[in-house]
Each structure stands twice: as C-alpha cells, then as structure tokens.
C-alpha cells in the first residue's frame, strides 16, 4: 500500500458527546478536496477524555501526533499545516512521538494491558485487531494447552475479579471446570451500573475483541460452549460494536462452530439490560437473562454449581476478560511482574469529578493514589484544595487527603473503608459536602434496592431519611448514632452485595468527616456551603457596582436594586440556584 497520511478520530461515547461526529464530517469533507491522499479512520477511547475531541495524525513515515480539543474549525489548519506542509501544529499537540508536551505526565505512569488496543485500532475492524495480536491467545490455548493448563496460567498470573470484589479468577474457573454437566455457560457482566464509572464501556467500545477472546478462553477452560454478554442498554455504541465484532469473528471462523478448525465450539449472545443496578449482582443478573425480575438469591448454590437455567455458569466482568488473552499469550510472568504481593497486574480507572485531567487510565497495582490524582490527573480542576476521592461507587467510600499515600491494591484500599470497586474514581474538592455525597449515594442505593430483603429495602430508606434531614437543616441529636446502628445492621443482614455495602459511603464519610455531620446537626451549617437549605446568598455592598447582571439572570426575581447602586437579595424568594454568583464578574456575591 502507498504510504500516506492517516487521520484517526476518537469516537468513543465521550468523543461523540464532545462533538466527534462533526469533526469527522469536517475531516471527510476536507479529505475529498485535498490533493494528497489521506486515509480517514475512527478509533475508540484514547483515554484523554478531558481533551476530547481527539484526532491523531500519523505521518507516512509512521510518526504519530495526537491533537486535543479539536473542533470542526480547526480542521482546515490541520490539513494545511500538518498534512500540506508536514509541520505538526505543536501548540495543539497533546501527545507527539518526538515532541514534549505538558500532557506527557498523563501517560508516564500508565501501563496498558487491558487497554492495549483501545484508541489504537478501529474497533469495527477485525483486521486491525488481528494485526495487534487478537485471537492469537485462543489459538494457543485450544491447540497447545489443556483446559487445566489454561486455568493454572490464569491462577499463576494472580488475576482477581475486576468487577470489584477481587475473587481470584483462576479459582472461579477451577470451580466451574470441576462442576459436572455437559452444558455450561459463560457470562460477561457488562452491566456497569456504578454512576461515575465508564471503564467497561470504554473497553467494549474501543476493543470488543479483547472481551470476546477472553470469554472464549474461559469457555475452553471450563468446558462451556455458550455465552452471554449482559450489557447495559444505556450503552448503545458498545452494543453496536459488540454485534459487529461477533459477526466478523463468526464469519472468519474465529467464533461459532469449530473455532480455528478445531472441535471447540463457542457461541456468544448479547442480552441487553433494562436499567436495574442490582443486575450487576451475579444471581440477579442470571435471573434477568432468564427474563424475570432481576432479584438476587441466597448463595450457595453458587453459579459455578447452579447458574443460568440451572447449569454451571462462570461470570466475570468485562475488564477481567479483557486481561485474559494477554496473560495466555505472554505468560503469567508478563502479568504478575506488575503489582503487589496480593494484587497483581494493572487496574483501569475512570478518573472523573473535580479533576483537571479526567479520563480513562490504566495503572500498575501498587501505585499511590497521590500519583494517580496529581501526576496523572493533574490535581483538582478548580485549583481548590483536594478533599477526598470516592472509590467503589455506591458500595465504596471516600478516602480523605491525609490517606493519599494509600497504594492501589485490594487490601490497602479496603483498610481505608472504601473498596477497589470496579474502577470509578471521583475526585472532590473543598466545595463538596460530604454529608451531601453520602445522601447522594444512599438515594441511589435506596432507589435501586430490589425490595426483596427487609434490611436493604427499609434500612436504606431510613438512612436516606436521616441524611435528607441533615442536609435540609432538620438533623437531630442522636442521628449520627442512629446512622451507625442502621449501617451495622444492614451490613450484616442484607441478602446481597448491594445491601451489604450500601452503608459504606456513610461509614467512610462519618469516619473521616464526622465534624461535617456535627456541623449540620448542631450548628445547622454546611461547612462546604453546598446544602441549599443551610446557606444564604448575599451581595457584598462594597464590591457590587450595580451592573444589574445578577438581577437579570435571577429566575425568581429575588434581586432588586437600581442601576449603578449596590443590589440586594430577598432571601425569602431566593431558590439558591447560584445563577447570580456565576454571572457576577466582580466577586460581589458570596455564600453565607
């Protein structure tokens, strides 16, 4: 093929949401009118979500440059200077092979195993995946290894379940392998329901073949010939790309009957979820695939003995599967050289919230939280002091600033009261109220509780009532103790993981930010100035010049005053929406 420029647009969900399709349109229009031949392609998430839309230009000699914050009106200059004159536009480059940029530290501490092909291949092209080693591992496994050897290799790698609980993957496979029965199932849990987590979506959108291949290897290891991917319906792009990937692999003889000419058969079906967080719990998920209400049941029996349609079933999460082919192809040693004694390999995190460089990062286990937040993430987006990082979503907890040297491994994170979780990492600054955060998570778990067991159904409701009381200035003496008692009961008695972990956000914020709870109860104050019933907006007379901007933007006409004279806010009308403060260019509006 003739050497030519290659332009690649990042079209994961984030890229599309940031306007990637419009950039793509502009590039295609330009491609048609440019005298030089340019190939245009798309890829999944490149990781630097904070710089979306991302466009990579690869020179004919293979040198690559990634541009950030690309808009359609920047396309002309990219074509004229980079492609026309061969001069990369250095001030727009966020990563260049021979350029130093301010963004390099985003990648310096990362190790990409799960994301090995994400952002590098067109996820809808099987050939591009194969050119980067896809489906080599399944060939190696079925042609040169016994199922037991595959399991041994995964055990030796130290891989633990990336859905959050951290159960050793090889052990799970061993149980399912040992279960008797001619019919067994593999399930991929792609019901990524944690608000604030998008690791699995990005993997499915960026490299669906990695997940399919991992599932096939698991199928071979336990003796299953059929599999389901249970995917969130909220992820239409991931589902579409999975369907394309499955079809392409089937047509190529990589999936379906007689995989790679052997007598190994494997069929993968997609089952779309319908919006129920509890379906991330394995027994609820199974019930949902069977067409019923997604409610968990008591274990044992574990799915490895009796799972989908009563058959032995092995369930792993998307990221877990995405690791498997790498381990089989390169050996356990290439994987367990990363990490700590009990947590091997790498972990993908979705870095979001008040963080300067939010995005998808993959780091070796054992890295300090401080390095992720400051070196990779660039600190808080507001420039204000860091307050806490929330790990593990509704099942996890908040880790405060003084514990930032905690390293990322299952046991160290557990010691803080948070959990590793599936990989959501939400950064908060001093403006975030920790009581409000606890209330937020409880309102989530309460509304997602399936209603089967009393401790979860009623317990989370009671906890939410108390937290709502606190954030509306109606907290009572004894509320903290009541929260602690309820937490303890729910933790010990709820039926499934959803309920058992629901109190975690409350317990960790109580542990590290108890003074904020006390301020809400005793002083009826919100120290972070977030809880609306506890705050008041005031105009500082000496700073207000009477520009009237605030009174014009106020949706309830609570601000009055003559032009060029200091204005006033009528607290009885004010809904505390904050529009005035945002509009004021003279810092004349404060929260009291």
């Amino acid at each position, binding site marked *: 093929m003739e050497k030519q420029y290659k332009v690649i647009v990042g079209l994961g969900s984030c890229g599309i949401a940031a306007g990637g399709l419009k950039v793509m349109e502009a590039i295609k229009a330009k491609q048609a009118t440019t005298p030089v031949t340019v190939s245009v392609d798309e890829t999944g998430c490149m990781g630097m979500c904070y710089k979306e839309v991302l466009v990579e230009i690869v020179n004919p000699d293979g040198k690559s440059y990634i541009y950030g914050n690309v808009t359609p009106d920047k396309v002309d200059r990219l074509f004229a200077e980079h492609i026309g004159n061969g001069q990369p536009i250095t001030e727009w480059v966020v990563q260049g092979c021979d350029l130093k940029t301010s963004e390099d530290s985003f990648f310096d501490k990362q190790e990409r195993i799960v994301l090995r092909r994400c952002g590098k291949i067109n996820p809808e092209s099987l050939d591009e995946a194969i050119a980067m080693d896809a489906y080599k591992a399944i060939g190696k496994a079925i042609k040169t290894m016994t199922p037991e050897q595959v399991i041994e290799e995964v055990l030796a790698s130290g891989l633990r379940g990336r859905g959050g609980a951290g159960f050793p993957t090889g052990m799970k496979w061993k149980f399912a392998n040992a279960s008797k029965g001619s019919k067994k199932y593999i399930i991929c849990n792609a019901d990524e329901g944690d608000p604030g987590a998008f690791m699995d979506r990005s993997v499915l959108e960026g490299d669906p073949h990695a997940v399919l291949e991992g599932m096939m290897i698991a199928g071979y290891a336990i003796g299953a010939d059929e599999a389901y991917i249970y995917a969130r319906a909220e992820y239409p792009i991931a589902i579409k790309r999975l369907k394309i990937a499955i079809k392409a692999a089937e047509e190529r003889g990589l999936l379906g009957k007689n995989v790679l000419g052997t007598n190994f058969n494997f069929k993968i079906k997609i089952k779309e979820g319908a*919006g129920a967080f509890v379906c991330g719990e394995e027994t609820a998920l199974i019930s949902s695939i069977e067409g019923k209400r997604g409610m968990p049941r008591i274990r044992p029996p574990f799915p490895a003995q009796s799972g989908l349609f009563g058959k032995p079933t092995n369930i792993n999460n998307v990221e877990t599967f995405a690791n498997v082919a790498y381990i089989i192809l390169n050996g356990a040693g290439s994987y367990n050289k990363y990490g700590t004694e009990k947590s091997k390999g790498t972990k993908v995190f979705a870095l979001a919230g008040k963080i300067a460089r939010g995005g998808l990062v993959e780091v070796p286990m054992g890295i300090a939280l401080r390095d992720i937040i400051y070196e990779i993430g660039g600190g808080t987006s507001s420039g204000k002091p860091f307050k806490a990082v929330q790990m593990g979503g509704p099942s996890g907890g908040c880790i405060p600033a003084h514990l930032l040297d905690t390293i990322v491994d299952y046991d160290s994170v557990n010691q803080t009261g948070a959990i590793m979780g599936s990989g959501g990492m939400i950064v908060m600054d001093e403006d975030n109220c920790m009581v409000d955060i606890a209330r937020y998570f409880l309102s989530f778990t309460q509304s997602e509780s399936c209603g089967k067991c009393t401790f979860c159904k009623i317990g989370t409701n009671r906890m939410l009532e108390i937290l709502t009381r606190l954030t509306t200035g109606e907290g009572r003496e004894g509320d903290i103790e009541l929260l602690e008692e309820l937490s303890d009961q729910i933790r010990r008695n709820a039926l499934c993981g959803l309920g058992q972990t629901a109190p975690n956000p409350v317990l960790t914020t109580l542990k590290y930010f108890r003074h904020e709870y006390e301020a809400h109860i005793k002083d009826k104050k919100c120290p972070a100035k977030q809880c609306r019933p506890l705050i008041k907006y005031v105009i500082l007379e000496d700073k207000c010049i009477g520009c009237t901007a605030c009174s014009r933007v106020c949706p309830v006409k609570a601000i009055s005053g003559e032009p060029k004279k200091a204005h006033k806010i009528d607290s009885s009308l004010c809904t505390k929406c904050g529009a005035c403060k945002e509009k004021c260019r003279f810092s004349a509006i404060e929260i009291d």
Partner: protein
Amino acid sequence: MHNQEIQAAYGYLPKDVLDKMCEKTGMFPTQVMGVATFYSQFRLEPTGEHVIKICFGTACHVNGAEKVADALADELKVEFGGTTKDGKFTLETVACLGCCSLAPVIMIDEEAYGRLTPDSARKIIRDYYETGRA
C-alpha cells in the same frame, strides 16, 4: 423478555398490547407487570417528542447536576418524569450516561450536551423552540 421488543416497536408498553401478549403466551398479567415495573427502562406512558435525560451520575453530581436539573424543570415547567403540556419534551433523570469527563451532562434524544451550567441548559431548550425543532 418480550417487553423490550414491544417497547422498541411502540416506544412504551401499551396496556392493550400487554394484555394481548398475556393472552397469546399464557403469562399472567402480574408476571408481565412485575417485570415492566421492575426495570427503569420500561415506560407505561408514551413520551414527548424529545426525551431529555439528565445525568445524575457521581461526576455530574459533584459538578452541579442538581442545579442544571432544577433549571430545566423550571424552564420547561415540568416535573422529573413528566412531559410538557405541549407534548414536546419528557424530562427524565438517569443514573449515569458514562460521559463523566464532560460533567454535568444531559442527553436530548441521542445527542449529548456537556459542561453545562443552569444558564446554558436553559439556552439549549430555547434554541430547540427557536429553531423549530420543538
């Protein structure tokens, strides 16, 4: 689950269609309604012309999603889960849209709008009306 197919065809689960399904499959109405009301995706009422989904994910929450949501509810004069009187918009909240780096985010039909303020959210709606899309 046939409910997903029915909803794909009608946009919601009409009662007479569910009744028909029970007749044909021998399922009990309680079973069907049990599933229909368990999952948040299923609707028993038709929606407006456009569906606005306000993301209430954690990243959006810490970046002020609530204020954006209130502004939209005020602009459209509608409660969460409801449809405007003119039938143009249905306003919903969702757990997470997964575009966390653009927080706070809303999605109107298939298009996402990110890095919103209460003000810019109102402008999007006005723009829909002004340009005749609603």
